[in-house]
Structures are given as structure tokens and as C-alpha cells.
């Protein structure tokens, strides 16, 4: 989607003819970053997204140009750096561009995103997770309110995005199917696109569920794994302790050619060293090119997981481990999901935007899925009978909408801000405004990730330390 930034904020070379732009006064972007690796220097600008391969021979010239030096022998290099926005006009405040993008996205009426829990019940009994084994599915009257809410909030001609989660939505597929049909009817009437994803533990992802996913037009499925079979079965089990790994993997095999599967691999102190065993198993099963793997930081993000603190890696520790894992996986030929390196973004999370809601199975409204089960204290209200939101806790609403990464010194000073945009605000607020807890991990592993990205894009991957037995994985 475009909101016409280019025409409204024509601040770069597009605003002036080539001859004038070269003669104009420029300064280095604050978001330049260079990584020297032997004969190659990778240059990235985190704001423009440009990514350069520079020869070691040329690099000193690049530095001279960025330092303001002029000369005939430097002019071609200078033009290059202006085009790729490593040099920006003197009068251009890059932070203002970031703020503008951020606010347009958050407070513009560009679409509707709903994170919906059709039930808070789960069929697993994981020790670290909030579950309510007795929770009910969303009742018909709550579904009706939610369907009205969707129709009311979706702007004409703008995209709708739904993420089904829980609990585990596989226990309430009738609700998913029912609501999906209603949402799709609204989208058709409003000429809006529709994208639906579903997050499940994968245990019930069988033929019948796949048919319901088809009917519900779900395209993406995220399935969580707690590392290798050995570790997964110790932490993600049925309520009586029965293992789940093999059945999940069988279901993944049967599903991944039709739906886009994202295998979320949770990484913590206990299982990190055995993650390569999981990759081995995925390879044995012939899955490495048929799904997306991404690694996730297990963090004690809320009251439900607070007892898990001793098993959580710190953000910098995790960044080091994740980087080693991504290198190993990419080298093996896996398709990688996740946010190790991204395009420039306008926000980190929809929780800070107006048209983004988390809806629990009682049609309570929240702003973050990490607050499921705590609607009374952390929610913002509920959906009324007429489909309009009833805000009962304005303080909570303002906490999320008032969140501003540009007020945080560490974020303002961070090179990665254009890709991170402040990180996970829930995590930061929960941790007493300790920014590190919510940061995009790129902040802590910038050189290695940039280098890995360059190697990947140029088909020149180096296995380096590898991952099996890698020090970064086995012990930070």
C-alpha cells in the first residue's frame, strides 16, 4: 500500500535534478553501517534499506566521501552514495521521516488487524504457559458481536488481516470457520483483501482441520516447537505428560505443501545446544525447503511465565545464539522466517496502532496477545452488542497508543531504529522500561547478521564456525 509519502515528502534526490543534487550540500546518514570482512566491505543503510558490496580497495574512498571530501576521483562514488542514501541532504532530518512513517501507519485508517482467540483452552499442558483447560469456546452471541465489530471497523477497500490464536484454535475450528465466513462476506462487500494466519501447536492438524482451514481461507500456519524431540517432549506435552513431537512433525509433513508453514523454534538456556539436532531431523524428513523455520527468544514476558526466568537467555545472549543458528540453517538450505534482518519498517507492532485489536473468546478487547487471560486488568474494554468497541479502561488504551520510541534515548540513538521502530513495547514496559528486553536482536548482532545477509544475497555463504558444537550455541 502506498500513502503517497513520495509526493508529499519529496526530500531526497527526487526533489531536485541530478546536476543540482550532486552540487548540493550533503551529510552522512545516521543509519549507515559498514562491516569489513576480508576483501569485502558490506555497507548498509538501515533507513533506505540499501545494501552495498564494496571492495576493500574502494572503501577508503567511501569513507573520504562520507567525511565530506570532494574531488574528481571521488565524484562517481559520491553519486553512488547519494543515490543509495548513505549521503542525505543537509536539511533532511531523518528522524522526522521515521516519525512521519510511524504515525501515518499507526493512526491512519489503512486497514484492520485482529488477533482472535476463538478459545483460550489448550490441549497441551506446558509448564510455562497460561492455559485454561476449562475455558469455553467463543459463544454464538460473542461471535455475532465480533462479526459486527469487524464489519464496522474495516475501512472500505482496505486490507484485513486476521491471526487466529488461543489457547489453541484447533479446539475451536467451528468458530474459526463460522467467523471466517462472516469476515469474508464483509471483505467482499467492502472490496477489501483478506489475509488469515493461524497459530497452533500442530497436534490436531489433520485432514478434517485442513479442510476447515481451506474453507476459512487460512494461508499461513505457525507451529511452535521447543527444539529437538528430546527437549520438545519434555516441555510441550499433553496434560498427562504424553509426548507430542512425532505427531506434530507428521502433521507438518502432511500440511506443508498446501499451506505456508512457519516453524517457530523456541530457544532457551536448556535446549539451545540441541537445536542442530532438530535441523537434522527436519532434513531427514525432507522438510527443509518445504517450510519456513524461524528462531524465537523464550522470555519471561508476563506473569504466566515469570517462573521461567532462570531458563531464559538475555537479549544479547540470545542474539548471539540466534545468529549462529540462522547461519547454520541458511548454510544447510533452510528457508528462514522471522526478523533477523528486514526491510525498513514503520512500526514494530500493531499494538500501538488504532486499528489493531486482540480479541479473546468472550469478545473482550486487548492490545497485546501476551495479556490473554488478564482482560480484567490489562484489557481496554469489550465489543458491545451493536459491534462498537466499549472502552472501559482508557488508561490501558492510552498506554499502548501513547507509546513512542522516539521518546526513548536508546532508541533515538540506535542505528537499527528504522528496522526495529522501538521493539516490543509490552516487553519493555513489563521490564521496567529496560529497552534491551524488547529490542530487535539485530541491534546486538549487527555485524554478523549484515555479513550473513550479504553472503546469502551474493551466493557466497561461509559456514564459519557452523552450529553443531558451535560455541555460541553450546555456551554463550
Amino acid at each position, binding site marked *: 500500500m*502506498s*500513502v*503517497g*509519502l*513520495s509526493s508529499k515528502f519529496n526530500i531526497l534526490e527526487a526533489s531536485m535534478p541530478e546536476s543540482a543534487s550532486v552540487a548540493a550540500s550533503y551529510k552522512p546518514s545516521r543509519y549507515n553501517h559498514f562491516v569489513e570482512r576480508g576483501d569485502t566491505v558490506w*555497507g548498509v*543503510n538501515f533507513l533506505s534499506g*540499501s*545494501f*552495498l*558490496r*564494496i*571492495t576493500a*580497495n*574502494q572503501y577508503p574512498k567511501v569513507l573520504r566521501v562520507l567525511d565530506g571530501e570532494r574531488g*574528481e*576521483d571521488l565524484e*562517481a*562514488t559520491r553519486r553512488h552514495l547519494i543515490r*543509495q542514501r548513505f549521503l542525505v541532504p543537509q536539511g533532511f532530518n531523518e528522524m522526522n521521516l521515521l516519525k512521519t512513517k510511524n504515525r*501515518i*501507519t*499507526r493512526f491512519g485508517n*489503512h*486497514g*484492520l488487524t485482529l488477533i482472535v482467540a476463538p478459545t483460550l483452552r489448550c490441549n497441551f499442558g506446558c509448564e510455562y504457559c497460561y492455559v485454561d483447560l476449562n475455558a469455553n469456546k467463543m459463544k454464538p452471541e460473542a461471535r455475532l458481536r465480533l462479526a459486527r465489530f469487524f464489519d464496522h471497523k474495516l475501512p472500505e477497500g*482496505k486490507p*484485513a*488481516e486476521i*491471526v487466529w490464536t488461543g489457547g489453541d484454535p484447533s479446539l475451536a475450528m467451528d468458530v474459526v470457520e463460522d467467523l471466517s465466513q462472516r469476515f469474508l462476506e464483509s471483505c467482499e462487500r467492502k472490496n477489501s483483501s483478506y489475509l488469515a*494466519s493461524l*497459530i497452533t501447536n500442530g497436534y490436531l492438524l489433520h485432514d478434517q482441520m485442513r479442510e476447515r482451514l481451506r474453507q476459512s481461507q487460512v494461508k*499461513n500456519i*505457525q507451529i511452535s516447537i521447543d527444539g529437538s524431540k528430546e527437549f520438545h517432549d519434555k516441555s510441550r506435552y499433553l496434560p498427562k505428560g504424553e509426548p507430542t513431537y512425532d505427531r506434530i512433525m507428521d502433521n507438518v509433513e502432511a500440511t506443508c505443501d498446501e499451506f505456508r508453514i*512457519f516453524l517457530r523454534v523456541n530457544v532457551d538456556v536448556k535446549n539451545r545446544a540441541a537445536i542442530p539436532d532438530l535441523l537434522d531431523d527436519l532434513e531427514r524428513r525432507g522438510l527443509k525447503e518445504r517450510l*519456513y523455520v*524461524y528462531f*524465537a527468544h523464550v522470555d519471561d514476558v508476563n506473569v504466566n511465565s515469570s517462573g521461567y526466568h532462570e531458563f531464559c537467555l538475555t537479549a544479547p545472549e540470545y542474539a548471539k545464539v540466534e545468529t549462529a543458528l540462522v547461519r547454520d540453517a*541458511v548454510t544447510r538450505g533452510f*528457508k*528462514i*522466517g*522471522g*526478523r533477523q*534482518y*528486514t*526491510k525498513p*519498517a*514503520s*512500526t514494530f*507492532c*500493531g499494538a*500501538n*496502532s*488504532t*486499528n*489493531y485489536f486482540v480479541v479473546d473468546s468472550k469478545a473482550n478487547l486487548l492490545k*497485546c*496477545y501476551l495479556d490473554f487471560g488478564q482482560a480484567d486488568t490489562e484489557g481496554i474494554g469489550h465489543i458491545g452488542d451493536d459491534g462498537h468497541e466499549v472502552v472501559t479502561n482508557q488508561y490501558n488504551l492510552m498506554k499502548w497508543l501513547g507509546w513512542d520510541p522516539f521518546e526513548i534515548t536508546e532508541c533515538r540513538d540506535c542505528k537499527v531504529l528504522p528496522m526495529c521502530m522501538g521493539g516490543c513495547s509490552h516487553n519493555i514496559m513489563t521490564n521496567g522500561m529496560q529497552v534491551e528486553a524488547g529490542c530487535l536482536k539485530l541491534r546486538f548482532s549487527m555485524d554478523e547478521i549484515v555479513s550473513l*545477509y550479504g553472503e546469502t544475497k551474493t551466493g557466497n555463504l561461509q559456514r564459519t564456525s557452523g552450529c553443531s558444537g558451535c560455541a555460541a550455541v553450546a555456551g554463550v
Partner: protein
Amino acid sequence: MSEELKKNQEEEIEVIEGACDLEDEDLEDVAGGGCGPGSGCCSGKSAFE
């Protein structure tokens, strides 16, 4: 500057990814999503595909 010198300088800087045009930048994040349970992951935003 000679064309040859210009060409050499250009070749020594290879653009792997060009700067995003502002109008192409990713305001397609609907309502500013790209996070939540999917974390930009179940909607597949990785650069390492």
C-alpha cells in the same frame, strides 16, 4: 573524469539491494501489524528466504 574511471568506481560498489523508494516502503503492514503472535513471522517477512 574519464568514462573508464567512472566505470571502475561504479563496479567497485555493487548494489545488492537498492534504496527503497519512499512510496514503495512497507506501509502495507495493514494497521501497523507485522508483530503479535506472528512476529512478522507467520506472515513471512524474512530477508533470508
